[in-house]
């Protein structure tokens, strides 16, 4: 076995460096490609949501830049040099600094004494095959792949939503011109025939808008008011819808009675019309078909909607015969909406029933022709009553408007001053304070200037005097003189002498001092 030399060690380390760098490059490229794909998918997904371009392109682009920058930094950090490779190999193989030391001393000019032994030791333990290099595919690749798959499999916006969330389709606005022109002609003929034509103040337009639903209402109300002659003729035994129609009608107490009377009158008019001609028969047939469709489909919500619309349409017929006031215009709009919805409801009914007549396709202007045929039948008495009612309503509204205006004006007034509330006369005017007497003092007490009753010089309030108080202690002068008490005290004088010995003591005192010994 050939002894390892410095060249072989260098070549060994060089091979490991190449392998390591190749692994780093491969991993970086894989991750860069995956991040590019991820960014493209993000752009595609964000475009579906109609986000602005700043978000659609900016967000994925910034994410891609962050990933690429991180990859570049990682690759730079792991770009091994010869020495770093030796240290990494040394640590990976547990060589305990053998390889690092050998790599360093291989570059020295003079080989140390133990260098050959170091190389021999390395030859026994150094095999770069066991050294790890960065994996091309790792957990970060898995994360990117998962993100890409998630974006690919996410449902797009073009897919059909499930039926549970299906919204009702808007009403179709297609208007066959032939049917509308035919109905207009029919209405004109009806209006020319019937003497009780509607006023020409534009009521026909409103009434025309109330074609089918009103016709439907009329046909439905006929059973309620006239014992359903039309129902027998048209085959509409439908007490329930009539009852349902009656309930929304009764809800409006102010116009309920008029509605019924008007409905009755309208029913009579329809009778006359029906008896007069067959101009309304197609419409009546369409209405009957619609009612049949209602019964056939059993769609309670559609029936209720159509019934309500029909009821609103009947209310409009009873209330507005020709004049358009502000409130009436609103009601007329409501009626238009109701008629449209009613017509849509009737259209639904016709669809549900599978039958559709030319009259059912009328809307707006088309429907107005049908309404005009029914509006002709309203009497002038109803119009006058309506006028009166409308005028009354206007008065009420105007009164309420006046009240509201007054309230607004009152709220716009300036706020009262604090403490005065809204009535300035609650508190009287502030009384000025009396001027103080005496010196210029903010608050002058009466005791300050009041004379003291007792003469207390140099004390209390008032001015000080020079008089000395007589109540104070006085010093009495006395002459100096000697004291009568002797300095030396006599012991005998202090002792009590019994009476029987007083004579003896007196004798002793009288004796001279020399003889006392």
């Amino acid at each position: 076995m050939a002894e390892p030399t410095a060249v072989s060690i260098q070549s060994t380390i060089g091979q490991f460096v190449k392998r390591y760098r190749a692994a780093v490059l491969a991993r970086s490229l894989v991750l860069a490609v995956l991040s590019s794909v991820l960014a493209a998918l993000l752009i595609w997904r964000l475009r579906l949501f109609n986000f602005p371009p700043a978000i659609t392109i900016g967000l994925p682009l910034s994410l891609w830049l962050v990933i690429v920058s991180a990859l570049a930094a990682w690759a730079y950090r792991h770009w091994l040099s010869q020495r770093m490779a030796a240290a990494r190999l040394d640590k990976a193989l547990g060589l305990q600094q053998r390889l690092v030391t050998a790599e360093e001393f291989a570059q020295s000019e003079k080989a140390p004494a133990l260098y050959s032994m170091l190389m021999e030791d390395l030859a026994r333990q150094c095999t770069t095959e066991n050294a790890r290099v960065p994996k091309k595919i790792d957990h970060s690749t898995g994360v990117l792949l998962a993100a890409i798959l998630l974006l690919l499999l996410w449902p797009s916006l073009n897919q059909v939503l499930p039926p549970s969330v299906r919204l009702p389709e808007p009403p179709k606005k297609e208007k066959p011109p032939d049917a509308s022109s035919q109905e207009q002609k029919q209405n004109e003929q009806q209006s020319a025939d019937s003497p009780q034509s509607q006023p020409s103040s534009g009521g026909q337009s409103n009434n025309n808008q109330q074609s089918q639903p009103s016709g439907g209402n009329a046909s439905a109300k006929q059973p309620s008011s006239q014992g359903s002659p039309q129902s027998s003729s048209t085959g509409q035994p439908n007490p329930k819808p009539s009852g349902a129609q009656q309930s929304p009608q009764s809800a409006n107490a102010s116009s309920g009675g008029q509605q019924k009377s008007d409905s009755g009158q309208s029913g009579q008019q329809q009778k006359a019309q029906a008896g007069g001609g067959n101009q309304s028969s197609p419409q009546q047939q369409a209405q009957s078909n619609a009612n049949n469709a209602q019964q056939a489909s059993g769609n309670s919500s559609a029936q209720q909607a159509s019934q309500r619309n029909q009821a609103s349409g009947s209310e409009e017929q009873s209330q507005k015969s020709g004049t358009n006031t502000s409130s009436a215009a609103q009601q007329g709009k409501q009626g238009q909406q109701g008629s449209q919805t009613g017509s849509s409801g009737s259209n639904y009914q016709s669809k549900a029933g599978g039958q559709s007549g030319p009259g059912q396709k009328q809307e707006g202007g088309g429907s107005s022709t049908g309404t005009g045929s029914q509006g002709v039948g309203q009497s002038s008495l109803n119009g006058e009553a309506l006028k009166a009612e409308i005028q009354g309503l206007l008065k009420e509204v105007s009164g309420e408007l006046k009240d509201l205006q007054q309230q607004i004006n009152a709220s716009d007034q300036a706020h009262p001053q604090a403490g005065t509330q809204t009535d300035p006369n609650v508190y009287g005017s502030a009384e000025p304070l009396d001027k103080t007497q005496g010196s210029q003092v903010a608050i002058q007490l009466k005791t300050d200037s009041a004379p003291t009753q007792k003469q207390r010089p140099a004390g209390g309030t008032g001015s000080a005097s020079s008089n000395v108080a007589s109540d104070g202690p006085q010093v009495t002068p006395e002459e100096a003189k000697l004291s009568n008490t002797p300095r030396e005290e006599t012991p005998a004088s202090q002792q009590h002498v019994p009476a029987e010995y007083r004579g003896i003591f007196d004798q002793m005192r009288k004796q001279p001092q020399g003889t006392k010994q």
Partner: protein
Amino acid sequence: MTQVMVTPEEFRKTFDALRKELSRVIIGQTEVVDYLLAAFFAGGHVLLEGVPGLGKTLLAKSFAQSLGLGFKRIQCTPDLMPADILGTNLVVDREGRKMFEFAKGPVFTNILLADEINRATPKTQSALLEAMAEHQVTVSGTTFRLDEPFFVIATQNPIEMEGTFPLPEAQLDRFLFKIFVGYPSSGELSRIIRETTASERAHIRPVLPEAAAQEWIVKARHLVREVLVSSAIEEHIVRLVTATRPAEDGGDNPAKRLLRYGASPRGAQAILMGAKVLALVSGRVNVSFEDIERVVSPALNHRVVLSFEAEAEKKTANEILEELLSPVRALQQEPPVSPPPKSRVSSAA
């Protein structure tokens, strides 16, 4: 390329034989024995610290016997004079005339045991400084070289500090390692009392032949100096020693709070020399980080001066070193940034 007379394999075998021979008399204390041998072959001196009765004197004596070297013992007392250690001139009568003759002191030996060195006066302690550092003694203007190898084993008692003279930092710095001798374990204590109180006691047999021991040890010390050291190891040692120094520029580092003075350059030399011996014992001709970690504590614990705050917290030097050096150990994984120098000198310290 210089010739190496003693091979690493031979050194490792001799080291193992010495270790094994000493374990026959010194029960337990394996780490103490390893450090003692490492300091001997590194060319340094050792300070043993432990309570009385742990076998410090026996260890030194057995150590000398296993190496086949001369051994002298000095019991330091407060009245010990420098002349008692170094020697003195005596007036002798020779050839009919009186002359001064230098009587060598106990320092003239291979292995010197200075027992309870902290009981000797500072003057006597300083008498050993020249002998330990330069392996020579100057008496009355005459310099006498000491025999090689010259190895001082000093002991001191951590208790009974009254009436003692603690070694100054200058003298402490001359010991390569300061080794703490601890209590034996229960098993070791059982074996001690069993073997030392028996009728037959183990005797140390010299591992090296007495005639060739000195020459072989000198060559072995030369081999230790030939061990290879990479620049990463050198920088790691520098970081370790620097971490023990309080900041001098007014900055704040952990050493500033716990130490008054850090390790000197002798500390770095002690670490590297001890690591070289351990590398040879491990069968390598290069120093590794594991070798460094094993000798840091005995090499630096007597070279740092604790601050008042550390003493108030009753922290030992080993605890402080562990706290200061743990962040440095974490950096040893990264290779150095700067490229190694192109021309390198094979012998280090």
